[in-house]
């Protein structure tokens, strides 16, 4: 009897053991459970060590996260590898995904079927945000200077998702000097990049300055500088501030000036998070007294730190203190490319005939501006288009006449109308405007701006010395809170030249003050705006009215 009972018990135990052990795929594995799962079998969890969709298996680390040691590999493969067939349901971060989307480092939950194959799988990614500045970029790689000052290199491809302001863009939109966020999941040697975010709004360098060092305030982390000049358009211009000015260090810029200060400080500023311009890099120089600025194109940079330029035979070297700015971004000097147009401020070395570059600025991205036309309106199709009888098109400083009608499209979201007495409304542009001569600034056939300003044909060039509000300004008096004040400005120009339309030559002229009325057309770097776009130091072309002298078209590049 006792032996019969013992036999039944033995058979029962054997049955339980046999029924509860699976042979998953080709591997034998230990029965383990996901956290909290102690009853149901066939449920496993762990961090993904390897996923091989080609061979159809996935290997997890052990439940406690161990299994990275090479000596543990065999055990891991035998105990923690699971096979899968086609079309298994996969969830990744709550979304349906393919097996290819499972990456090393993911936390996986696996359910096996009765044959030991994966029935379904659900994973959660653990991407880490790595923040920094794009330091160097190649076709397949990106070097990131992280916020802690260290560097990391990532392999990138054209298919990598890149976003700016939550909108998709491409790898080519990442410029060296851009602040970016790389979503990285690392596991062993595997690095998976889910995507790159470019900062929502590029915080460009707001100014490059120099001046005589007065003192460094270590409590407020700021520097006091006298005789401050700004590097504008390749030249040093005095700033409006007179005397000693204080500039705050950015909280991200950890370098501090040497203990005993003297000489000249060169520094670049950017807007900090509180909107105040703060120093993001500074270099302290003992000046030789002989300095110059130049414009040229870069041919190459030698390993010895020499710039080879297209039109200059001077030996110009650079060092770690040289401030390099490309397309408004503070960059390492190695980010400059062949034929980049450079504006350089340099000084002669105290010890040899070399020049040392203090500041190098490059604007490699040249935007083509819109085209300016003028014509007499023949027909208005309200809210849709206008047609001019014939038109002239501005080419350089001359008008090119075309004796054919041309139709321009109205896009209400971008097409603006400005008149002498204020902003007009494109919705009210109707047949009343027929026979009026207007300027049309257009991109392709799309109207960006219509101005009713008078015809101008006297080109002037010069460098802006200052901008002031016109005392005879016609302020908006209609009492509306939201209408823009109708004001004129006066531009003071130096190094002025006036184009002689008869002899076709530029002739030197004394300094000029030119009134810029409200309905003038201002285009700077391809962008249409108001006179507020123009800064002291800018080199501009103005087409002005030959009688009134008013500047109507202001171009700056």
């Amino acid at each position, binding site marked *: 009897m006792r032996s019969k009972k013992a036999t039944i018990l033995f058979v029962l135990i054997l049955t339980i053991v046999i029924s509860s052990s699976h042979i998953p795929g080709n591997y034998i594995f230990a029965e383990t459970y996901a956290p909290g799962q102690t009853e149901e079998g066939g449920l496993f969890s762990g961090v993904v060590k390897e996923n091989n969709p080609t061979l159809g298996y996935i290997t997890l680390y052990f439940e406690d996260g161990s299994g*990275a040691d090479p000596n543990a590999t065999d055990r891991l493969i035998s105990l923690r590898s699971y096979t899968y067939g086609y079309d298994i349901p996969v969830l990744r971060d709550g979304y349906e995904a393919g097996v290819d989307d499972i990456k090393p480092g993911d936390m996986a939950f696996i359910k096996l079927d009765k044959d030991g194959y994966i029935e379904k799988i659900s994973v959660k990614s*653990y991407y880490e945000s790595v*923040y920094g500045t794009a330091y160097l970029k190649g076709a397949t790689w990106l070097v990131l200077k992280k916020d802690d000052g260290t560097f990391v290199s990532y392999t990138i491809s054209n298919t990598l998702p890149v976003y700016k302001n939550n909108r998709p863009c491409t790898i080519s939109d990442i410029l060296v000097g851009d602040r970016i966020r790389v979503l990285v999941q690392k596991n062993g040697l595997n690095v998976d990049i889910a995507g790159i975010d470019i900062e929502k*709004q590029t915080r460009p360098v707001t100014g490059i300055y120099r001046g005589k060092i007065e003192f460094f305030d270590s409590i407020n*982390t700021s520097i006091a500088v006298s005789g401050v000049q700004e590097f504008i358009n390749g030249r040093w211009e005095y700033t409006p501030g007179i005397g000693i000015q204080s500039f705050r260090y950015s909280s991200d810029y950890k370098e501090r000036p040497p203990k005993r200060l003297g000489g000249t400080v060169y520094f670049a500023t950017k807007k900090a*998070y509180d909107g105040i311009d703060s120093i993001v890099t500074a270099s302290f120089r003992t000046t030789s007294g002989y300095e110059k600025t130049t414009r040229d194109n870069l041919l190459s940079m030698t390993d010895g730190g020499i710039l080879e330029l297209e039109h200059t035979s001077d030996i110009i070297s650079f060092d770690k203190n040289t401030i390099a700015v490309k397309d408004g971004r503070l960059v390492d000097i190695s980010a400059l490319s062949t034929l980049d147009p450079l504006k350089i401020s340099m000084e002669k070395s105290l010890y040899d005939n070399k020049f040392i570059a203090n500041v190098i600025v490059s604007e490699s991205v040249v935007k083509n501006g819109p085209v300016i036309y003028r014509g007499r309106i023949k027909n208005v199709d309200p809210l849709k288009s206008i047609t001019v009888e014939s038109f002239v098109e501005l080419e350089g400083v001359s008008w090119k006449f075309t004796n054919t009608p041309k139709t321009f499209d109205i896009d209400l979201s971008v097409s603006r109308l400005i*008149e002498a007495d204020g902003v007009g409304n494109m919705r009210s542009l109707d047949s009343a405007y027929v026979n009026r001569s207007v300027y049309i600034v257009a991109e392709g056939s799309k109207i960006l701006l219509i101005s009713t300003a008078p015809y101008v044909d006297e080109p002037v060039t010069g460098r802006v010395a200052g901008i002031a509000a016109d005392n005879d300004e016609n302020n908006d008096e209609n009492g*509306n*809170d939201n209408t823009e004040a109708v004001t004129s400005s006066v531009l003071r120009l130096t190094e002025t030249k006036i184009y002689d339309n008869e002899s076709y030559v530029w002739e030197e002229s004394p300094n000029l003050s030119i009134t810029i009325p409200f309905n003038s057309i201002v285009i700077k770097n391809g962008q249409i705006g108001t006179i507020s776009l123009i800064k002291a130091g800018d080199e501009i072309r103005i087409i002005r009215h030959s009688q009134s002298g008013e500047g109507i078209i202001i171009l700056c590049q």
Partner: protein
Amino acid sequence: MRRRIIKLLAIILTIIITAAPLNALAVEGTMGYSGGISVVDPIEKSEYQYSEMCFLTGVPIKLTGTLTIKKTDKNDVVTSTYTYRLSNTEANATLNRVVIFTTTRETKANGQITESTRLSRLPTEVINVGGTTYRLIESGFTQSMITDPKAAINYHTGEFSERKVYAIGTGATRDTVTVTLSGRTYAYDQYWSSTETQRVNMMVEADLRNANPPVKWGGAAEIVVSSATLYQINYAENEPTHISFDGGYVKKRWMESTLDYTARFPEFDKNGLPTDVLKTYKDTQSLGTQMELSRLMVPDIKHLNGYWAEEPISILFGLEILPGTGENFKVGKYLTRREFVGILMNALKDIPADPDVRTATTANSRRSSSKNVPEISPFKDVEPGDLYYEEIKKAYQKGITSGSGNGNFGPNAYITNAEAIKMIVSALGLENLAPYPAAATPFTDNDIIPAYARNAASVAAILGIIEPDYMGRFNPSNRLTNENAANLIFDIINYMGNELIKDYRDRIIDF
């Protein structure tokens, strides 16, 4: 006699109201919920310098002035009164607003606190811009918030939604402007820094029925506002050489608030009518307080002059996180678990409470027993009165340590890297940054890291609190020396003071 009793009761009640310990409230809400920023007024209590953008006219107008906040907490129901007095002389604009909120708090089983806020009554608000009056005639507001109180940091997140309708002009008018706001709040509170950031989406819709012809226009703004309290420690060198101590450290504390907005509104024509062209307005503004400076004690660590860990050791002594004055500090000495917890708890410090709250508690009619309840230690091998007993008890209560097993703490055992990092990550409450509890760490000695510390080691590596050694190892069983502990604690303070704010402010603004 009766009068005396009443007087005595009144005094007791007053003491209870004013001196009762304050709960660390969720987010202090010092910026309000209108997309504005504030910093505490250095002189007036409960008053803040305040600034917000007004978009009612379709053109941004910056309004600045004061915000007064008064809060009363009665049995987890907080009544908050926000009074705004703002103006902009140049734009000839003024704003007067009084809003009273009722917030109900509930503590959940896992210790998390949820909050729900609504308006107590219709707010009063009158805005005047260039002679045109905007009077609030309808308002609705709701806000929810969750606070996850961890040992060293309280984490908060929440959302709010508001709708306000203003009548334009005085008397019977049919012109209205409707402002709809929705926002998310992300915040944390802790000793070394605190930050509250709101991302607000605002929609402004004007319905001008009295205009000729009647017109409707709309615009929108995305506003990120952030308010932070920061600490910084700077070295101050001595100029005289005949001085009894070397240079020392200065602790700086200040508050800064930032308002960053991008708004798109129709351009208005010369007649004040909207055009279809959307004009983009962008700006960043800020408010800040004057820095508070305080000197740290200069420790006597001349035997460490020039040592590579001199700075963190000096600062930690100065902050009185390391005990003593430094003359006996031996960098290579191993730390016991007791000593490490003592130092760690000194570094983490208590989370500051909301200064604007007055807590009113109902006086209990029953007298509490005046008998001293005997102190019971959470661990068998740590007695009340032992060195760092209070710190060990607090660490246990906050979930930083659960001891070494079997009800013991092992106070005199040397602490290992693994144990220390487990305590630190538990204090920060960030275990969820890596697969829990089964993370595979980036260290080459991953497999010898005890399972209980593997997740913590992985998180600490992500946070940059620990770095691998030259062989890529974590060395979990290595004992922590005084020097290692000083570096580690210094890194935690740096993380809590300087790094966390980047995640809660800088990166939200940037991306």
